[in-house]
């Protein structure tokens, strides 16, 4: 496994752990005056997921797969 794949796997696991935000479990604090903190955290988490996948695309995109796909019997 390539080094960056291991790093991304580790970050993915960390993100999966961060999904379990036990610290917000019983908090009813409001963010922006109307949004419960448990919801605001997970909305930010969605943004974080998008950024994570953006970085994965930038660093670990499998360019060779496309080349391989183009050279087959399906054409």
């Amino acid at each position, binding site marked *: 496994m390539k080094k960056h794949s291991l790093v991304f796997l580790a970050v993915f696991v960390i993100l999966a752990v961060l999904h379990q935000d036990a610290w917000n*479990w019983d908090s009813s604090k409001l963010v922006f005056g109307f949004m419960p903190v448990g919801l605001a955290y*997970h909305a930010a988490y969605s943004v974080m997921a998008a950024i994570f996948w953006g970085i994965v*695309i930038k660093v670990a995109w499998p360019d060779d797969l496309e080349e391989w796909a183009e050279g087959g019997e399906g054409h």
Partner: protein
Amino acid sequence: MATVWVIVCYLGALLAFALGSKMFFRGTSNDYFVASRSIGPFMLLMSVFGTTMTAFALVGSTGKAFERGVGTYGLMASSSGLIHAACFFLIGVKIWSIGKRHGFVTQIQFFRARFGSNGLGYLLFPIFVLLVIPYLLIGVIGAGKTLQPATAGAFPELFKNDNPILNGGVPPWLSGLVICGVVLAYIFAGGSRAAAWANTFQTLVFMIMGLVAFIFIYNVLNQAGNPTNVAARVTENGMVVQDYTFDKESRKLIKAEKPKVVGKLKHPEEAKKWAGKQPHLTREEVEISHKAKHPKTKELIDKTRKVGVPWLMFLTYMFIPLSVGMFPHLFQHWLTAKSAKAFKLTLIAHPLCIMVVWVPCVLIGIWASGLLPWGMPPAAVLSNVLKALIGNPVLTGMLTAGVLAAIMSSLDSQFLCLGTIFTNDVVLHNSKKDYTDKQILFMARCFVVAVVALTYVLALLLQNQNVFDLAVWCFSGFAALTPLVLAALYWKRATAAGAYASVIVVAISWLIFFAMSGFGGEFTVLGGVMPVAICWMAGAFAMVAGSLVTRPPSEETVAKFFP
């Protein structure tokens, strides 16, 4: 009547837009099944997102938040942002490349070739069909349940109903017929390309309409200082109360002098802990007793609802979004991509699109806990909030069109995918006859018509059954099958025996849990574990064990599937 006209105009516009794709139709079966693998990044994003978000996205999320509170988003949406994208990257891109290289148009073709087994296809075929059909029914029945109250009063003489909320509304048999007819028209004409065009249009519509609904509702409820003040509250003596009412005539939110009691804590000893709190704003679980109408006798009965999400359920629900890795209709969408690079936009934007749709819906569901009767069925929450707070027929029509868009953007892909599977994996597979491309196209269209007709009839027969309860079971079934596709793509040692073992173990364990649940509905084991987690692990174990005890695949197979 204005509501009906808005919906009719929407359906007309959709049909015109989708049929516009016919100009690009190349008349081949390859174009019909996978749009000649020519769909670019934006349309791929819209069609994948639109297909993934069913009626559940708008109607279900609001209803679930009304029941469970704020935890709904973390339970179903934020985890999907991470895991759906992982499936698109790890499974979708690889499937696209293998499909393109070897010319596959269905999932079963891929599994048959990868594991060198015809029988595996015959094992998977009924499983896929049985898991997709309830999903289709949810769409058609959901459309009927959305349209009837939204159009109530439009045809008082034509469609009489004892229930005043439904009287004069378009009945489910007609709405189902229209929805199926519209989807059939463009799928019949343009296949995969028409589905991609229609999904792009519909996804934009339901995203915009969801935001419009949110802004209107926010503005109305903001009269309470902030809209979240409206959510139900627990009093010092353990009663659950609603502090506000909405006066339709003056269009004002009024703070009630005496809060309306809608329930009470099931365990009164928890009253001190919960006093002054709004249970929908946290994920801590609390049981609340309330009254609800019996669906048949209409008498008031005692019910208990759990607001909040138990930790184990929250954790193991993360297996559910894996289902996108095995959805046959999504598989077909992946194959329509012009290039692997077309997936890049989907990977980044999918979590954000989920956020744009789900955050407003979850908030509306939380706020609705302080306005609607607690016995209201979750599926009816969104339409009732819209009707109660907005009350503008044109806007109601536009928002109903948004809900229909979410429903239809999944229906079309599912109809097409079943037609494609029947044509390619049942009729053409092993057929000794040489069919021309025109004959294949004709056959596919006939199958699509048959699937649509069957779905419509089943929806009529089952319209009073709570098929929404089946949704999570469909997702669970597909999610539990993902060890199969992961092993097929990433483990050279995976064999046909492992594949059979995995599918059979998943099917048996799923059936056991499904029966234990009483054939549908929310069900957990071991104090909150979702059955899908156990089915998935059993399937993964069976795949590994079955593969290791049999001979590895041939070098030829490995070379064919592992670049």
